């Protein structure tokens, strides 16, 4: 069940965490340091779509922040494209939980923003941005400001803003969290189509098991705090996937039940024996 995630450095890996620990020291003199991640090791090969699932507060987002270089590990190695991550990692794309669209830029200029920062000439980045805006059905809303867009539109804009500059690795932190169930599934479908264009490596944090199965090649389950990888699952459903009917696929139910048993143990506290 763990093929593709075997330990041992391989220069062809897109990213790797090697025995990573992350502790936070809260404010207050007497506060005990908080261990968020404990001995986390996994790797992803280029083009793999990997989901991290687990109870809230288990450090899934911390994994993304480490790879983005916004945090440093307390121990262990965080490696991207064969090199240790030092400082902010501008080689990856990071789609955060909040869409973080800049409210003073129109939707088009938000989508262009990453390209602009990377020095892509104006005409070229405008074309690219429009192409992606078209892909997610936002054409006609280019001049709207973020506060004039619906939640789903903002998510789409945030996602294509990052995908438009085509980094090899994309981190996504519960991007569909606050959306209603229908919009969620539609966006999952759109995301898979966008991903299929160039197949970047994706690390996708979610607590929705159906979403994880529908999107991923591999799923890593995390234990509650401190976050440890419990198990790695391979999703053997064929691609392209039909996210609207994913639960009817052969093998879906077994995988869902296995994941749910794993996670439930953590939520109810049975997994805290150690």
């Amino acid at each position: 069940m763990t093929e593709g995630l075997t330990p041992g450095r391989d220069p062809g890996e897109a990213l790797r965490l090697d025995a990573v620990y992350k502790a936070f020291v809260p404010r207050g003199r007497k506060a005990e340091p908080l261990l968020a991640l404990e001995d986390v090791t996994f790797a992803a090969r280029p083009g793999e779509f990997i989901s991290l699932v687990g109870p809230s507060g288990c450090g899934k987002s911390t994994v993304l922040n480490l790879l983005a270089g916004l945090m440093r590990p307390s121990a262990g190695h965080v490696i991207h494209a064969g090199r240790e991550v030092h400082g902010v990692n501008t080689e990856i794309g990071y789609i955060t939980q909040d869409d973080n669209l800049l409210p003073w830029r129109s939707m088009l200029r938000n989508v262009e923003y990453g390209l602009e920062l990377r020095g892509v000439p104006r005409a070229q980045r405008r074309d690219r941005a429009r192409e992606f805006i078209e892909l997610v059905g936002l054409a006609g809303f280019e001049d709207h400001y973020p506060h004039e867009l619906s939640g789903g539109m903002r998510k789409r804009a945030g996602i294509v803003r990052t995908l438009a500059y085509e980094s090899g690795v994309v981190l996504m932190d519960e991007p569909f969290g606050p959306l209603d169930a229908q919009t969620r599934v539609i966006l999952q479908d759109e995301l898979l189509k966008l991903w299929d264009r160039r197949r970047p490596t994706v690390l996708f944090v979610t607590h929705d098991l159906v979403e994880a199965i529908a999107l991923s090649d591999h799923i890593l389950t995390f234990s509650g705090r401190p976050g440890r990888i419990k198990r790695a699952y391979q999703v053997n459903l064929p691609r392209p996937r039909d996210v609207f009917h994913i639960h009817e696929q052969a093998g879906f139910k077994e995988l869902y039940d296995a994941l749910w048993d794993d996670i439930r143990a953590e939520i109810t506290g049975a997994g805290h024996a150690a």
Partner: protein
Amino acid sequence: MIGGAVHPVTHVTTAERRRVLRARRLRRGGVWVARVALAAFVIVAWDLASGTLVRPFFVSNPEAVGERLLEWLGGEDEFWFHARFTLTSAGVGFVAGAVLGVAVAWPLALWRTAYRIVEPYFLVAYSVPAVALGPVFILWFGIGLTPKIVLAAYFVFFVVFINTVEGIRQVPQGYVDVARVMGASRAATMRSVLFPGALPYVLAALRITLPAAMIGAVVGEFIASNRGIGYLTRAAAGRYQTSGVIAGTIVLAAIVLLLGIALRPLSRALRWQPEVRLRGGGGQ
């Protein structure tokens, strides 16, 4: 066809629209009529009370004040000379205070430790009533234009400073993180995230401090001056000429009001603008 009478949808909506607009117009018109009536009532009451309930020495009367105002506004140069003096010190003080406020706020907002070092001193300086500093400034800068400019700038500086710092700080960390990961340098982050993010706060602070600059300039004139509208008002008081005091006050209020109206577009300058909650009130 269901139902009886045929009402094309556009008829229904335009009729409703007309109704709503008329109601709105009436309400707005009513408010204005009431406002003017209230002002007229106060003036009439003032006129009637003066000489009957209260001695004219204390409250003068509308005719005398009106006469004084006409004499000033219609006069060749004396009043306008004083008005120019006050507006100059307020204007120069405003610009100086605003530029200094923004300029000092930027490095301090970005460098937290430095801000924490100086913060208590700024708070102390801000809580000193600026009026109390008037005599000090006059001691340092004489009784000319300079102390009035300094006092006006002082009124402006803290509000602009505090709100610029606040404006920079309230920019969500997520915007900064996303920009950095997308490849923004420190300079680019400042230019494309922090500056536009703080702008509504700076603009709002500028809007409320322009009247504050006027107050600073006039306070300076009250303390020691031989020019300005504040001086005119004070001189009238010195001669027990109540109509002059009231006329001076009205002129100052009118200037502040006009400046406020002139700057109102600033609050709507940015289409995307969020609600801005200012710190430091209206400049004391």
